[in-house]
């Protein structure tokens, strides 16, 4: 065993030793970001806009769908949803049947098409169905910034007075409909 029971080589100080500290320092920075990120569950990110009027915006239409576009003037009158989607976003494809279902039940859903090529967005809607009443094309993502969108998909519940009452981050699941969206819409309709 003597051959393998030897002492570790004595550490020799090196002028470039500080270089070897870089990995652990970089990791510390990543660790801090992760620790701060933990406190912010993206599924329930509160919105500073909750109970405030929706930001004012006016988005052009998706060329080839209709001529109307989507603006703040379309909000209010009755409870409705605003969905932020993009054709390149996989979770959007997953939540789409849920939106279709809601639209069939008579819920008004408007949409902000986020950083998308119009032809891709149209192909997406042709393939998966179009549950939306109005769609605004937000090619630069400016309106989405005003809404405080973190990523796609996101869904906002708007009340009769055009105020944002709830924000859902990530794909809507059937469970979310049962537990939050439908009860909230019913309450707001009363």
């Amino acid at each position, binding site marked *: 065993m003597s051959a393998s029971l030897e002492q570790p*080589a004595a550490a020799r100080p090196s002028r470039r030793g500080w270089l070897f500290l870089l990995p652990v320092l970089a990791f510390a920075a990543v*660790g801090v970001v992760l620790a701060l990120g933990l406190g912010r569950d993206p599924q329930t990110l509160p919105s500073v806009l909750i109970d405030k009027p929706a930001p004012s915006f006016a988005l052009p239409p998706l060329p080839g769908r209709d001529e109307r576009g989507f603006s703040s003037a379309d909000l209010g009158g009755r409870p409705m949803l605003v969905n932020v989607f993009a054709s390149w976003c996989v979770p959007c494809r997953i939540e789409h049947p849920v939106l279709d279902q809601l639209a069939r039940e008579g819920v008004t859903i408007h949409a902000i098409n986020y950083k998308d090529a119009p032809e891709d967005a149209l192909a997406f809607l042709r393939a998966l169905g179009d549950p939306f009443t109005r769609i605004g094309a937000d090619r630069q993502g400016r309106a989405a910034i005003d809404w405080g969108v973190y990523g796609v998909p996101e869904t906002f519940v708007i009340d009769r007075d055009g105020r944002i009452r709830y924000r859902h*981050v990530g794909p809507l699941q059937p469970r979310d409909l049962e537990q939050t969206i439908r009860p909230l819409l019913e309450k707001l309709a009363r």
Partner: protein
Amino acid sequence: MIAELGHFALVLAFAVAIVQGTLPLLGAARRDAALVAVAPPAALVQLLLISIAFGALVHLYVVSDFSVANVAANSHQSKPLVYRISGVWGNHEGSLLLWVWILALFGSAVAAFGGNLPVLFKSRVLAIQALIGVGFLAFMLFTSNPFERLDPAPLEGRGLNPILQDPGLAMHPPMLYLGYVGFSTTFSFAIAGLLEGRIDPSWARWLRPWTLAAWTALTLGIALGSWWAYYELGWGGFWFWDPVENASFMPWLAGTALLHSAIVVEKRDTLKSWTILLAILTFALSLLGTFLVRSGVLTSVHAFASDPARGVFILALLVVAVGGALALYAWRAPSLQGGGMFAPVSREGALLLNNLLLASATATVLLGTLYPLALDVVGGPKISVGPPYFNATFVPLMIPLFLALPIGAVLAWKRGELGGALQRLWLAAAATLGVSIVLLLVSDLARGLAILGYGLGLWLILGSLADPLGRAALPGGGLARFWRRLCGLPRASWAMVVAHVGLGVLVIGVTATSTGQSERILAMKPGEVAELAGYSVRFEGVREVRGPNWIAQRGTFAVSRDGAFVAEIASDKRFFVVEQRPTTEAGIHTTLWRDLYFVLGEPAPDGAWTVRLYHNPLVVWIWGGAVLMALGGLLSLSDRRFRVGAPRPARVPAAVPAE
């Protein structure tokens, strides 16, 4: 009863892991042979105990014991047996048990097959392995116990997410974890090497088979996941740059770099501290992936239900394991002595370039994955990073890598000659250029990027084959001599050729699928015919079919070409009764040259159905290429020098054994 048995086995495994993680380290420091000898049997006992726990959970799923909360939340009696079993790892707690089981599997594999390792080194490796196990077993026992009871027990379970009820996904997590968790061994080897203060060619030779095994499994695991996404998500894409996909891709990139830099340590005794760093970082990225998937800091289709307490626990684990390892690295690595010098143009230089490009690619993916989170944390604007970012940053890094790869592979060690290398590759280079020019002439110039992709893939294949063929085709001797020389090449060389050819095949498949896809979205009535990329597709209509736990609308299509029948393809819209969720099952007909990929959409009031028809050229090459790469890994693993074992290192750095 069985649930309690599993729980107790886990508690015992936790206790054994504490013993295995402390006594051997103490023994190694005090030169106490008795304490050191604890490690191997402890590793085997740990595997046994965790196997009992795992078997218990599988049993509970098979018999549908809904008094166990985990089973009730994730299973259902109407589920077919195979999905009741795969449901074990289709959820957070169960997949964590699989994670820990594979960790123990690797630990005991080192104990059982590490006969060529020095006793002290081996006991340190096993101790580090056990300390990782302590962390994860504690995580399970304190925050995510899969054996928790439910009182009163429900009569029926809640079922498994339907898109997870699929053969590809049943195999995907075990394969992926074999890779992820397999890199724990390279981590343990790195830490043990740093503790011992000795990193030499034999260290690299011990490290390599474990790296290869983990890398091969991870390659197959990622390929399975991408294959699943292709046929299950129903729109013909194969990679989405989703945070969770990136989480598995980053350790793969770093592991690939490690695989190559370990060769330099083994052959030339240099790049040591870099290789150690890669070994630590590869496993760190695996842990980071685990954190991202389970803590809920990022949204993803793949993410498990999140719970802040779990996130804090994994983050603490990550900080202790990776922070500790990197601190040890900062302390010990400066004293590692560099070995042989080499010229920039040499095999070492080429492998260093490979490492720089792969490390940059890893950093790019890491940045894209964490950037939205980081920006949000510092109060910046909220953004999302999509495929456009990755296409713009990742792809340009791959172009020089692929261009240089065949050249680097034929350079000599220490000091190579670019001229000589190019001489051996001129035929491959000329053929690649010729084919690319012909492609450019027959297609339009706007497709330049696609042709670049095809050219790079072809260059990888031909350039990798040129060397062994050229070496076998020495003047003299007929076909028999040529064949004999070809067979006489060492298996490690063949491994390299096969893996690099696989990469070329993959690049061609990715290029063809991303640039050459034909798509038609239309409303078809039964009996109507549509044209798609030269095929006539006749929509036969829709009927209702029933599966074990779903009801489906099945649309069938008859495909013909020039009047000759090709195939009948069926696509389902399934509705899972228990989970109340629909899924689409694409109808796919695969040949070597193309996939026909049909998806049934929604019915319209006039009796027509929306259908999506895709023609995906060469898509099967993507997975074929990945399988070839994994095959290369296995071939290398079976190379003679790992089986006969490494020579024992002498006190002075040993001479590098010749091939």
